[in-house]
């Protein structure tokens, strides 16, 4: 499988603060990739770098192009929704459609109108008159109506209630995902996207601490619910994270053969949220 994103040693500093500190990244084409990290980890900077909105040092190719050289050419193949309501507030809904139709050769206006007809967004309203959820729905309808290879979403559901969030991801899955197109999502709400993802990237303090497919994760990471009598044995195998769970202790291991772990207790694949906590602490202490 070819990679739609290939990055090596990406560096970006704001004064003394290193937003990206040698990011290496490979995202396969056709995947749904979650870019997860705590606040200030470098998620937005990474995403902005991918679409040429942030100047970075290092090797970077997105959809076969260097975003720093010809952003406008790249944007014929990439769509972006940011974490803040970035649609211009003074525009009316119909005017946004006019604008995108006028500048994007791959925009399908009929499809956008059809998608909007399933929402309660009136075409004559200004963006500033819409709720946050409606603005995101509108933006999603716009990008769904553009035939692109890559969709970049930076905290797209931030500030939305659960109904809008669920609707957003349902629509994303039904109308965008076709096995060929790629989605990169950055979010704090890990649990909501866990089931969608085929690829996972964790970022911490400007560096990638995990970059693997979901299938690889199941192979590499194991969670074991260890009984008290086997804790010494479990500790000896070098867990990356240990937490209390209903009076028992749950140990998370990285790259330890399952055969060795089987004797300690019941084996599970850790959830993305658990793995996130484990890796963040691991990165912090390691």
């Amino acid at each position, binding site marked *: 499988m070819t990679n739609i994103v290939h990055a090596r040693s990406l560096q970006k500093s704001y004064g003394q603060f290193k937003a990206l500190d040698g990011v290496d990244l490979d995202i396969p084409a056709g995947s749904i990739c979650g870019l997860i990290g705590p606040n200030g980890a470098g998620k937005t900077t990474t995403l*902005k770098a991918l*679409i*040429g*909105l*942030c*100047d970075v040092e290092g090797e970077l190719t997105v959809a076969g192009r260097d975003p720093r050289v*010809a*952003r*406008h*050419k*790249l*944007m*014929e193949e990439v*769509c*972006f929704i*940011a974490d*803040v*309501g*970035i*649609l*211009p*507030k*003074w*525009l009316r809904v119909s*005017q946004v459609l*006019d*604008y*995108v*139709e*006028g*500048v*994007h*050769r791959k925009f399908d206006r009929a499809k956008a109108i059809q998608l909007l007809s399933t929402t309660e967004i009136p075409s004559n309203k200004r963006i500033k008159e819409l709720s946050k959820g409606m603005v995101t729905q509108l933006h999603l309808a716009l990008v769904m109506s553009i035939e692109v290879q890559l969709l970049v979403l930076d905290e797209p559901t931030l500030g939305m209630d659960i109904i809008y969030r669920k609707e957003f991801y349902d629509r994303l899955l039904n109308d965008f995902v076709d096995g060929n197109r790629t989605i990169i999502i950055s979010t704090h709400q890990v649990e909501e996207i866990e089931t969608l993802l085929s690829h996972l990237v964790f970022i911490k303090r400007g560096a990638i601490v995990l970059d693997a497919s979901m299938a690889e994760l199941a192979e590499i990471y194991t969670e074991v619910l260890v009984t008290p009598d086997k804790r010494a044995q479990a500790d000896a195998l070098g867990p990356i994270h240990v937490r209390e769970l209903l009076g028992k202790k749950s140990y998370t291991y990285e790259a330890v053969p399952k055969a060795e772990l089987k004797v300690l207790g019941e084996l599970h694949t850790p959830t993305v949220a658990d793995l996130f906590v484990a890796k963040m602490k691991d990165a912090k202490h390691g």
Partner: protein
Amino acid sequence: MDKFSLLQYRALIRREILEHRNLFILAPTFLAPILFMAMVWIANQLDPDDLGSMISYLAMLFNGLSPVEMAPIFMLGGIPFIIVLFSCAIVYLLVTLYQDRKDSSVLFWQSMPVSNLKTVLTKIVTVGAIAPFFYMAVLFGFYLVTVIWLSILGVSHDIEIAGIGYMFMAAVVSLLLLYISAIVATLWLLPSVGWLLLFSAFARRTPLMWAAGVFIMIGFLEDFLFGTQFLANWVESRANPNQYLIMSFGDVFDRIFNYDMLFGIVVGAILIAGAVLMRRFID
């Protein structure tokens, strides 16, 4: 450049008009009735004999003139519109690359396949050709109403000012001259256009303060270090409206094709390139 790439300019210009309709459409639309009502009010305040004398003077002024010769007199009536257009153009150039960064909508605009060069060029075309077009359209309505009003005043005082058709043609010629003047002014003042765009693209807040402050600082440093005032003198030399006001069609060639104009265009182009780069690198 393919056809779609050219057609993108239409959507980009439409965006500029929608976003800045207060400056381009509402400002002249409010100005025209205010000016007309002011003229009517002043005429009503005058003694009928004085008004009659003024109409006679106007009739004498227009007597025997062709529409082309009458046009510069009509251009005087456009001065308030030109002043407002000039002020709105300065405001526009200062906010146009700043406002969308301030409200974060820049992320939306930049997520579209439009280059920064095309965005900035659109803004120059908008301020140099599109905004003056709207002003001229409103001024056309203003002239039309004024010509009819003057004709009625003339008839009521039993004085024939000039043929209404003649005055109407003179108004159209003056609009053409003013429109060409606006385009020539944009080229002549391209260094100022570039300077304002540069700081609109650069400033995180108060672009006016940056644009004015840096200019004053450079002038001060030049004076302090070299004891010269080249920058101040050069800017002053370009501030004279006679250098871009076109009073007859024969002036156009001389105004455009001269070394001063060429030098200004080169300086303007460098500053505009700076604005494009700033747009690209400021995040």
